[in-house]
């Protein structure tokens, strides 16, 4: 499965890469902000995206909206420090499928991914 990681922090992307590799996902692409991600989704065609909210150039929410406007239906999990309920609702309205709040454990991220994919499948 192709997974795209969108986060301005290289460290966070490395952590997510490590977790995903342990879970068996090896086809990964990285983007450092929303703009970068938009330029890569056409060629990469991700089947799952992990997106941070607060990023320079284009934040995660704007990216999600534009991604959905293009007709892309791949599941998106928001991985962010934003934990307020209103923020969560806003993200879901924009087209996010699931939400993980930092800090998170590797197990928690793994669970969210499985949960998201099984929901999509049903």
């Amino acid at each position, binding site marked *: 499965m192709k997974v795209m990681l969108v986060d301005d922090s290289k460290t966070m992307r490395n952590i997510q890469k490590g977790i995903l590799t342990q879970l068996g996902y090896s086809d990964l692409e990285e983007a450092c902000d929303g703009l970068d991600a938009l330029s890569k989704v056409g060629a990469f065609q991700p089947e799952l995206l992990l997106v941070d909210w607060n990023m320079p150039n284009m934040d995660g929410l704007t990216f999600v909206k534009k991604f959905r406007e293009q007709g892309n239906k791949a599941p998106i999990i928001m991985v962010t420090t934003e934990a307020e309920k209103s923020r969560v609702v806003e993200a879901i309205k924009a087209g996010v499928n699931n939400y993980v709040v930092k*800090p998170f454990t590797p197990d928690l991220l793994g669970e969210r991914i499985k949960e998201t994919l099984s929901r999509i499948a049903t």
Partner: protein
Amino acid sequence: MAAAAQETSPTVAIASDKMSAQLVIPPGYDPEMLTTTLLKEIIRDAGVEVTDFTTQALDALTQNKPPADQKNTIDVACAQPPTHGTDGSVQWFVDEKEPSNPGRQADEKPGEHTGNGAEPDAVSYYDRCAFMMVKTGDEIGRIHPALIGQDGRDVTGETIPAKSGKEVTLQIDESIMRRADGTLIVQQDGVLYREPGKARIRRRIEIKDYVDFSTGNLDFDGDITVGRGVRNCFIVKATGHVEVKGLIEAATIQAGKDLIATGGFAGREQGHAYVGGSLKGKYLDNVRGHVKNDLCMDREVINCELTIDGGINLPHGSIIGGKLIPTGEINIGTLGSGAGVETNLVIGSVPMLDPFAEKLDAMVRSLTIDRDKLIEEQDIINKMSAKGRMTATDKERQTEIMFELSTINANLQKAQRTLDSVTREIQKRRCVNITIHRMVNAGVTLIYGHLRHKITTEIKGPARIYLEGGDRLVYRQCDAPSRPLAQVADVQAIRQSKIAA
């Protein structure tokens, strides 16, 4: 009248061996009478076969008629000599190559002849092996068949028989295969032995004399037996047993199985023994190395540094000086000497596993330190979180810590499990049981764990030294009760034992 006519007629002279014939034309014979037809008749009448050679000779004669006033002699027949056959032979490819140099990793010992030892292409005579080492599949020679030969023909047309060649006989066994074209192929690794009429490959080198410049260093897949000794600086390596009936000097012996030093091993601090089996023999003097099984000597082991994965068996011998690290039981005549020579015996260790356990222990401690640092940092962030002062950066750092902790914990668990398993194995193999038949002299040091027991009062044999209560060294003479070894030894701590005894 007829006799007078014969004297003036051409005649044919045949050589006594019938290999040639000549036409003799007497002086005064009319050259006009010399016709090819007439001359051929004369030649045939003489019993000589007329061949192309004859015709050519006669044509030349009739075209260039010789002067009539002198005797003329012309070769008119030449025999075809026979081509005799050749005997079969064996061509040995191995003789056409450079002598083998199996000791390619030989130490850089100076050769005798190389004027300047710094020359890059200098030859080491230690490496020039006199034995022909071969490997399975090597083509070592070819049997050439005998050639029959071709008969000849003398001037009278009779056959001169040719002699036929004799086939070569070469006796080989299953170690050498002969292909249909006569090529000889090696069927097993070993050394090629050749005698007249015989060849075979053996997995054993037998040297009647010394291992020296006549043999070069040896590196052999099989057993090696040396009838006399091994000279200084030479290297003998074998995957099988090595037996040396004479003295081993300051040489290096590497045996995949047992090493038998019947004549002793006088290493002079340059001798090395690496033995995959047991090391047996007369004595060892200044030898370093490793023995995978037992050390069994008839006499002394002097100033040696050896690690022995088995036990030591010298019931009539002595260990004097040096340092021995056995794993198994020790059965010895005398330990140390009356002169108080420092003799070290490390007991209760498992040299094969102890270093590995130490590394694992260090790894576990290092991982634990890293883990504790991360937990400490995590606690600080958690406290800030409880006070509502956690920033986005803190949250990210918190995630990083969780990830790193997860990895460290997994590695720590693995390392600890392995360490526990190795420690259990060490406990199983650890053996402290020394049987002394004659004496333990003062000056002998027994190192057990982190304690050094230097014997201050001699212990007369028969006696035993062993562990009591799991960790206390005691000694016992004959039927007397056991006593702490500390009573006759000066005990000092040498280092903190990292692995529980």
